[in-house]
């Protein structure tokens, strides 16, 4: 790290500490002091437009838009809003609107549950697209700083506003409490981890289910879990790295900047990358030592994350590693049931079976799967033909050792077993969340009806016959960067059965100690030794019989 970097990080650390220092003040509703502490030029608690009793999210948004005239349009142009993405390299139409994943499966036909994490209010029908009105943008989920604002888990993104139905839960699985919308509106500021984390730490239906490197641990992580977000360290917000420009945030899981060759080493200078190199540069290791030089030689072929995130799902919260939908639907005495046989290290038990979802496996401190990766991901969409004889890759990683744009990256490899159309040979959509329809799987536990309903909903042909196929899905690992002392040692990879043992097509020193040359070389050595020993033996034997030497 250069001296300039140190000072940058020092500055972020200072800002981070300032933010932490501000939290209790905001919570005490003393927003004026909070705004002052943040150095903001606007104290939202003094704004007339916000000094009223709000009864719904859109009412708050209208108030926001009365000053922030462009914010609504900006958000509505972002993937956070559109859930739609045209891949620049493959041309594939992706986004949550379309893709099938190895977790809950698909959003289509399950909207009010899935769109509870949409950055808006009331997206009820996926095919209609997100709501048209700017007032349906949810400003507070990102900008609330009271720490109280949240969304209900199945009302298409609406917050819990009194009166709330008994037993309601939020998107984090917590019991829902009515939100004081005015207090939230008056508290607004830049997003903190608590804002982003409510959705992104709980993707896939629970804490750390999906990503593996994004869990509730990151709300207040120790340095050992995440050196950047550490509460006793720089305390980065998500947006410290995921810089934004007009509400478009850097960072993508469809087209990733897998090798940032610009490597500005000037934090936040570029507004369109969330790469390590944008802060740390292209030669991040101390160059004074030979090892530093050698490590810097690695950055063109090995992603920073590969060495610096030795394991994911650290800090006490496990991630789901296997989801078998084929066992879903078993009932006990005609009623759905669950088992929670896995206990994660923070003591919490996790489901290992649910009638609604099937069987699960979990893991903590997971060693990643490694692959050559150029940042491009191709999805197996519901229109792609699959070969059920082998495990289907829900998303395929592009990259190879021959390609200079590719580097070795760490991934969470999710294993799944998912429904597909037996005759048409494609993955199928599934209608699980009704909640009250007679086709929803979670209500009726009938695969045939739920698949048919979902396929009908998206307007795709379905043969009527389904089966289950093994699947893999890859999730790039990039969070939970460990302190440098915990980074991988050289021999983690440079060894015979090292971490990169599954990767071929390139020369890895120490990776294949017994190759052809070794066999030849050892044969030469053995022959030489045998020759010497044989020569010596004959010498000794003949000298005993013959005259003394010398």
């Amino acid at each position, binding site marked *: 790290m250069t001296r300039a970097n140190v000072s940058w990080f020092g500055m972020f650390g200072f800002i981070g500490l300032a933010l932490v220092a501000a939290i209790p003040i905001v919570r005490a509703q003393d927003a004026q002091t909070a705004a002052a502490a943040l150095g903001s030029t606007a104290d939202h608690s003094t704004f007339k437009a916000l000094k009223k009793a709000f009864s719904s999210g859109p009412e708050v948004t209208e108030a926001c838009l009365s000053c922030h005239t462009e914010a609504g349009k900006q958000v509505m142009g972002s993937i956070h809003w559109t859930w739609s993405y045209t891949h620049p390299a493959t041309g594939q139409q992706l986004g949550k609107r379309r893709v099938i994943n190895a977790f809950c499966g698909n959003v289509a036909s399950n909207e009010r549950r899935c769109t509870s994490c949409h950055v808006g209010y009331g997206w009820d029908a996926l095919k209609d697209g997100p709501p048209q009105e700017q007032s349906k943008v949810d400003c507070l989920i990102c900008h609330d700083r009271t720490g109280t604002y949240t969304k209900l888990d199945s009302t298409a993104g609406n917050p819990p506003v009194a009166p709330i139905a008994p037993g309601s839960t939020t998107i984090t699985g917590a019991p829902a409490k009515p939100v004081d919308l005015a207090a939230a509106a008056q508290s607004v500021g830049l997003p903190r981890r608590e804002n982003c984390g409510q959705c992104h730490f709980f993707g896939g239906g629970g804490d750390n289910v999906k990503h593996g490197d994004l869990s509730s641990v990151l709300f207040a992580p120790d340095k050992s879990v995440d050196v950047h977000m550490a509460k006793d360290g720089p305390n980065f917000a998500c947006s410290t790295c995921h810089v934004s420009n007009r509400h478009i945030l850097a960072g993508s899981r469809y087209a990733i900047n897998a090798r940032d060759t610009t490597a500005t080493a000037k934090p936040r200078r570029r507004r369109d990358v969330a790469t390590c190199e944008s802060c740390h540069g292209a030669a991040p290791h101390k160059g004074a030592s030979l090892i530093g030089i050698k490590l810097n030689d690695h950055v063109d072929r090995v992603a920073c994350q590969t060495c610096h995130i030795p394991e994911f799902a650290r800090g006490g919260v496990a991630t789901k590693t296997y989801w078998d939908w084929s066992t879903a639907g078993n009932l006990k005495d005609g009623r759905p049931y669950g088992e929670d046989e896995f206990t994660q290290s923070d003591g919490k038990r996790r489901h290992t079976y649910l009638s609604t979802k099937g069987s699960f496996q979990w893991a903590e401190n997971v060693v990643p799967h490694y692959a050559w990766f150029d940042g491009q991901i191709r999805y197996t969409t519901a229109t792609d033909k699959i070969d059920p004889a082998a495990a289907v890759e829900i998303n395929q990683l592009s990259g190879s050792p021959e390609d200079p744009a590719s580097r070795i990256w760490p991934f969470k490899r999710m294993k799944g077993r998912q429904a597909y159309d037996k005759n048409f040979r494609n993955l199928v959509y599934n209608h699980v969340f009704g909640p009250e329809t007679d086709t929803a799987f979670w209500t009726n536990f009938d695969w045939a009806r739920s698949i048919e309903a979902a396929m009908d909903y998206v307007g795709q042909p379905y043969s009527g016959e389904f089966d289950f196929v093994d699947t893999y899905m890859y999730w790039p690992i990039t969070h939970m960067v460990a302190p440098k002392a915990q980074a991988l040692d050289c021999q983690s990879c440079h060894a015979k059965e090292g971490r990169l043992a599954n990767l071929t097509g390139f020369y890895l020193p*120490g990776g294949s100690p017994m190759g052809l*040359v070794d066999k030849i070389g050892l044969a030469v050595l053995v022959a030489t030794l045998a020759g010497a020993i044989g020569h010596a033996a004959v010498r000794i034997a003949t000298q005993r019989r013959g005259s003394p030497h010398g």
Partner: protein
Amino acid sequence: MVERRVKIYPRFERFWHWAQAALIFILLFTGTGLHGLHALIPFGSAVTAHTLAALALVVLWIFAIFWHVTTGTWRHYLPTTKGLFQVARFYAYGVFKGEHHPYRKAYWRKHNPMQAMTYLALKLILFPAIWLTGIAYLTYNFWQHQPSAAHILEVTANLHLLTAYLLAAFVIVHVYLLTIGNFLEHVKPMITGFDAVDLTPEEEAYLQADEPGRIR
């Protein structure tokens, strides 16, 4: 002709020999570690030690080449067939009969013909091969963008490895041949510098007159 004890290995040559021997052992130990043949040293430490030892050896070679050229000692390594057959016959047959080594060291010919040829091959083939491949390997990041660089790297690494095996074989033979006769007596000249050498009367007179420290 008279046999005298003459300093045929001056201080620099002895230093060169032993420093080179130590560096070769370090390089063999760390190199086999890097290659994954043993795990007695962490990879990172092995990289550092191997690289530094290799660079030290290259520097030493540069000095040694300069020394050979300026002192004219390179002439000891000129290949010759004179006496070659006798030496070969000795190792293959005579040694078992208790014969004496046929070669008589001369002031300007301190190695026997087989020895000279082996050392010449070492200096002209194996050493250049190991340091050329080693330097190519070490500087990979400067040429990695050339076409099929990754493949060339693998070939380079394997040539380096093969040469290392051959050097290890040389070390075995080199040490083994010292055991023919008296091991310590064979090692001693490389420590004291003095060995029994046949001198012409002119050489003897020259050494006694001009370099009395080199003759006993």
